[in-house]
C-alpha cells in the first residue's frame, strides 16, 4: 500500500533530519574519511530513526529544537575536522583542475596544448566539428593546419621570442573563415646555461642556453660575452685551429660556425635534422655529431671543412658522445637501452661492442687523451635484477677504459636506503644527489651535485685527495655544468638560476644571464624555484631528477613497492593540462605529488610549504619536444599516410579513451579492464596522452612492449586496448605510423 498523505508530509521531515544529523554525529565520532564509512554512519542513523518515533512523542517546538541539536553539531564538527581527509581519500581534492582541463577540451573547437612556449617550435592540435580548413594565429604568427580528417587539424608553429607582457595570451582559430578565440597559458623562457664545451689550455669555455637561443663565452680572466646561436642550440665545440665555435641545433638542419673573437655567425653548414651532441677527436681532425631522427646515426665530419666523412648507424638513439684515444674510436651512451657503446673503425667498417650500465648515463666526458671515459649513472649493474630493490637509486661515477670498456674506477655516492630512511630522518644528511656535471683536467676530476648544492674534487682515479665545496641556499643553487679553465680555475653553471660562476683561487665571479628577480613575472620566479625543487635531493638522497632526467624518462623500470610489477618511468614533458597525474592517476594536481617527496622519500632538510606550488609551475613550464621528422611542410604522400592512419585510429576505436585533441580522456581505468593478464587487478592506470608517443618507448604500464606495433598486436591479446584484431597488417602499420607522428 502506498503511504497515507499525512505520513508522507510529517514523518519524513523528522526522519530525514534525524537521518542526516545522526549520520553527521556518527561520522564525526567515528572519524569517517571515506564514502563507505559515511554510509555506514547513515545506516546507523537509520536504525536510530526506527527506534525514535520523534514526530509522535514531542510537540513541534521541542522537535525543532531537537532537530537543530542533532543536525548542526555533527556535520559542523565533521566538516571542520574530517572533510579535508575525506576529499583526499575520495580523490576529490583538486577535482576542479581536472574538470577545468576537461571543459577546455569539450569547448569545440578545442585546442591542445593549452600552453604556448615562446620561441620553441610547438605542435597544436585543433578539434573542430567538421571544418575543412583551419588557421591558427598566435601573436603575429599565423599557420595553416594540416587536416587529419574528421575535423582534426595539426598546426606546427615556430614562434620567435617576444617581450613578456602577461602570463596568458589569446590564440585565434579561423575555421572555414569563422574566428574563435581561446586563452592559452604562456611560458616565457629564461636563460638556462647547462654544460660547457671548453678549451682548458686556452682558458676558455662556452655554454649554451637552449631556451633563450644564446651562448656565453667565458674565460679564465673573468670576462664573458653573450652571443646569438640560432634556434634551439643543442651542443657546441671550440675549434682551436680555426678560432671558431661550432653550434649544433635541435630543430634546424644547419650547423653554425661562430667566430671566437667577434662572436658573429661566419658560416652555416647543412647536415640534416635531429642534431644532438658533438665530440671532437683528440687529434682534433674529426667531429662526431649525433643525429636522432626516425633513424639513429652518428655523422663523422672533417673538422677543417665540416664535410661529412661517413655516417655510422647506431643501434639505439645516442645521448652522450666522446672519442677514444684515436679518431677511429667513438664511445656513446644511450638512455633508451642504458648501454655504453664503443664503435671502432676496422677496415672501413665500424664494429661495435657495448656494456650494460643498468641505468642511463646522466653525463659523460673523457680525459684529454681519450683513455678513460667518466660517466655518472643513477645505478650501475650488469645484473639488471640488482637494480630492482625497492625504490633503488644509487648515484655512481664510473671511470671506464675506452679500449676494452672495463670499469677502472668506481665511486658510489652515499644514498640513504629505504630501510634506513626512518632512522635517518632525524640525523644530519649524509647523502649526495644526482651528479650532472663532470670535468677532467690535469689528473683532477670535478663533479657537480645539484641535489645537494655541492661540487666535489677528486683525483682522476675517483679517490683522494677529496675536496667538497658546498654552496649555501642563498648562494648558487643546483650547479649542473662544470669545466676547467686552466689548472686552478674552473666554472660552474646553475640552469635553475640562469647564472655562471667562475672560481679562481681568490674567490668566485658571478655572471647572471637573467634580469634581477624583481623584474621577473611572478610565474617565472615560481618556475625557477620549482626547478630547484625538481633537482633538490630529499633526505633519502633521491630527487625528481633521479628518475625523470631533466623532466624526461630514464627509460628504466623501477620497483616502486611491488617487485612483481616494475613500472617504466614516465616523462613529465608536456604534462600541463592532463590532470589526473601519476601512473595511477591518483593526483588531480601536480603539487599533490609533494606527498610522495615528503612521505615516501623522507622530505627535505629545510621546510618550505610552497615547494608544491613551485614544482607545479616548473612542471607545467616543460614543453613536449617536437618530432624532428615532422618539422616543416609534409609531402603529399606523408600527409595521405597520416590521414589514413587517423581513419584507422577511429576504426580501432582508440579515440574512445584517447580522444583528440589531447589524445587522452583525462581519466583512469583498472589495468585488467584492458589487459586481463595483468597480475594485480587492484591497479588503476592513468590514460596517458598519445602526444609525444614517438619518444616514449617502452610502452604500457611495465614497459612490456618495445614498440608500437607489438603494442597493437602482441600485447593486445584480449583486444581491449583498441579493437586492433579487426585491422589488417597494413592497417596496423598505418596506425603505428600515425601514432609516431603525434
Amino acid at each position, binding site marked *: 500500500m*502506498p503511504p497515507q498523505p499525512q505520513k508522507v508530509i*510529517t514523518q519524513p521531515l523528522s526522519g530525514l533530519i534525524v537521518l542526516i544529523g545522526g549520520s553527521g554525529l556518527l561520522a564525526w565520532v567515528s572519524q569517517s574519511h571515506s564514502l*563507505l564509512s559515511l554510509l555506514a554512519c547513515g545506516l546507523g542513523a537509520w536504525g536510530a530513526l526506527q527506534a525514535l518515533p520523534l514526530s509522535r512523542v514531542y510537540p513541534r517546538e521541542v522537535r525543532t529544537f531537537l532537530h537543530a541539536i542533532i543536525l548542526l553539531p555533527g556535520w559542523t564538527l565533521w566538516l571542520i575536522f574530517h572533510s579535508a581527509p575525506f576529499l583526499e581519500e575520495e580523490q576529490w581534492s583538486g577535482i576542479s583542475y581536472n*574538470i577545468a582541463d576537461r571543459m577546455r577540451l*569539450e569547448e569545440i573547437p578545442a585546442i591542445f596544448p593549452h600552453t604556448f612556449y615562446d620561441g620553441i617550435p610547438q605542435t597544436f592540435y585543433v578539434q573542430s566539428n567538421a571544418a575543412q580548413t583551419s588557421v591558427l594565429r598566435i601573436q603575429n604568427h599565423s599557420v595553416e593546419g594540416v587536416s587529419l580528417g574528421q575535423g582534426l587539424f595539426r598546426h606546427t608553429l615556430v614562434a620567435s621570442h617576444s617581450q613578456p607582457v602577461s602570463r596568458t595570451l589569446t590564440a585565434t582559430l579561423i575555421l572555414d573563415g569563422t574566428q574563435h578565440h581561446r586563452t592559452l597559458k604562456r611560458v616565457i623562457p629564461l636563460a638556462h646555461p647547462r654544460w660547457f664545451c671548453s678549451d682548458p689550455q686556452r682558458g676558455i669555455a662556452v655554454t649554451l642556453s637552449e631556451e633563450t637561443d644564446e651562448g656565453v663565452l667565458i674565460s679564465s680572466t673573468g670576462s664573458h660575452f653573450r652571443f646569438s646561436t640560432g634556434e634551439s642550440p643543442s651542443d657546441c665545440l671550440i675549434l682551436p685551429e680555426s678560432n671558431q665555435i661550432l653550434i649544433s641545433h635541435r630543430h634546424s638542419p644547419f650547423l653554425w660556425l661562430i667566430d671566437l673573437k667577434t662572436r658573429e655567425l661566419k658560416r652555416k653548414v647543412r647536415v640534416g635534422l635531429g642534431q644532438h651532441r658533438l665530440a671532437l677527436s683528440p687529434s682534433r681532425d674529426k667531429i662526431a655529431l649525433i643525429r636522432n631522427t626516425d633513424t639513429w646515426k652518428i655523422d663523422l665530419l672533417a673538422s677543417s671543412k665540416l664535410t661529412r666523412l661517413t655516417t655510422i648507424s647506431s643501434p639505439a638513439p645516442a645521448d652522450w658522445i666522446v672519442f677514444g684515444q684515436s679518431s677511429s674510436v667513438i664511445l656513446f651512451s644511450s638512455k633508451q637501452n642504458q648501454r655504453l657503446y664503443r664503435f671502432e673503425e676496422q677496415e672501413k667498417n665500424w664494429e661495435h661492442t657495448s656494456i650494460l650500465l643498468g641505468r642511463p648515463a646522466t653525463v659523460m666526458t673523457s680525459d684529454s687523451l681519450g683513455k678513460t671515459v667518466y660517466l655518472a649513472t643513477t645505478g650501475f649493474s650488469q645484473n639488471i635484477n640488482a637494480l630492482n630493490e625497492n625504490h633503488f637509486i644509487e648515484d655512481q661515477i664510473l671511470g671506464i677504459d675506452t679500449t676494452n670498456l672495463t670499469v677502472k674506477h668506481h665511486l658510489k655516492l652515499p644514498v640513504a636506503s629505504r630501510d634506513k630512511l626512518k632512522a635517518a630522518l632525524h640525523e644530519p644528511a649524509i647523502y649526495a644527489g644526482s651528479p650532472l656535471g663532470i670535468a677532467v683536467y690535469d689528473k683532477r676530476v670535478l663533479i657537480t651535485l645539484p641535489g645537494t648544492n655541492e661540487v666535489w674534487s677528486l683525483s682522476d682515479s675517483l679517490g683522494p685527495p677529496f675536496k667538497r665545496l658546498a654552496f649555501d641556499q642563498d648562494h648558487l643553487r643546483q650547479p649542473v655544468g662544470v669545466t676547467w679553465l686552466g689548472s686552478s680555475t674552473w666554472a660552474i653553471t646553475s640552469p635553475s638560476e640562469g647564472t655562471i660562476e667562475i672560481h679562481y683561487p681568490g674567490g668566485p665571479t658571478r655572471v647572471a644571464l637573467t634580469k634581477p628577480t624583481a623584474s621577473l613575472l611572478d610565474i617565472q620566479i615560481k618556475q625557477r624555484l620549482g626547478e630547484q625543487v625538481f633537482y633538490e635531493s630529499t633526505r633519502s638522497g633521491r630527487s625528481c631528477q633521479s628518475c625523470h632526467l631533466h623532466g624526461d624518462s630514464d627509460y628504466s623500470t623501477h620497483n616502486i613497492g611491488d617487485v612483481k610489477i616494475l613500472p617504466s618511468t614516465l616523462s613529465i614533458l608536456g604534462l600541463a593540462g592532463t590532470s589526473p597525474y601519476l601512473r595511477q592517476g591518483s593526483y588531480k594536481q601536480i603539487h599533490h605529488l609533494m606527498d610522495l617527496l615528503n612521505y615516501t622519500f623522507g622530505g627535505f632538510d629545510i621546510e618550505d610549504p610552497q615547494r608544491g606550488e613551485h614544482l607545479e609551475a616548473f612542471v607545467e613550464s616543460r614543453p613536449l619536444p617536437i618530432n624532428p621528422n615532422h618539422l616543416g611542410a609534409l609531402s603529399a604522400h606523408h600527409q595521405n599516410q597520416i590521414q589514413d592512419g587517423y581513419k584507422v585510429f577511429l576504426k580501432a576505436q582508440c579515440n574512445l579513451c584517447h580522444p583528440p585533441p589531447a589524445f587522452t580522456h583525462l581519466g583512469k581505468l583498472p589495468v585488467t579492464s584492458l589487459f586481463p593478464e595483468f597480475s594485480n*587487478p587492484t591497479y588503476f592506470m592513468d590514460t596517458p596522452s598519445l602526444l609525444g608517443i614517438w619518444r616514449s618507448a617502452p610502452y604500457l604500464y611495465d614497459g612490456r612492449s618495445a614498440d608500437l606495433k607489438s603494442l597493437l598486436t602482441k600485447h593486445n591479446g584480449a583486444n581491449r586496448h583498441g579493437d586492433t584484431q579487426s585491422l589488417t597488417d597494413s592497417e596496423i602499420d598505418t596506425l603505428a605510423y600515425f601514432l609516431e607522428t603525434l
Partner: protein
Amino acid sequence: MIRAPRTTTYKLLIAWVLLVTMLVALCANEKFWMHNQLKLIRGTGLLALLFFLLTLLHSPIRQILRKRPTKRQFQLNLRRSLGLVSATAALVHSALALLWYYPAEPWFVPLLDSFSRFGIVAMLTLVPLWITSFPTLNRGLRLRHWAALHSLIYLSAILIAGHALLAPFGSAKWTLLGIGLVVGIRILGHIVTRTRFKPTFAKNRGD
C-alpha cells in the same frame, strides 16, 4: 489514496525484461560485444543519467507550470515510469561496467576507486527505490515508511553527480549544467509552491 493501475506496472516490467533480454542477447554475441561494449556501457549510463534528471525535474516543473495539481494519477505514473527507466538503465549499466572494467574480483576492486565507488553506492541506493516503485510489491511488503525511504533519491542524486563528475568518459560541462539545472529548478519550484499555496496548504498539512 493514490494507486497506480496494475496494468501500467506490468507493462513497464515486461518492456524492461524485453530490453534487458535484448541486451543480454546482443552481448552474448561475442563479435557484437567486442565492438560495442564501451558504447553500450556509456550509452546505458547516459540513458540512466538523463532519465534520472527527468525524474528529479518532473515535480518541480509541474509545480512551476501548473497552479493546481491536476491529472495527479497520470503525473505520478509518469514520474514513476521515468524513475523506473532510469533505475533499470542504471542496473544494466552497472552490470555491463562490472563485466567489462572489473573482470577480476568485481565484488571488491570497484570499491578501490572513487569513481566506481560512487557509482556502486549510487546503484545500491537506487535498488530499494526501484523495488518499492512497484505498487503491487509494496502491498506485499507492507512498507510503512515509503516516503522516507524514497527520500534516498537525494542521496542517490549526490552520488550520481559525483560518479558523473569523476567519470573519465563523461562530459564535465553537461554534468555541471545538469546539476545546476536540477538545483535551480527545484529551488524555483519550491519557491513557486510556497508562494502560491502557503496559507491553505500549510493549514491542511496540520503541521
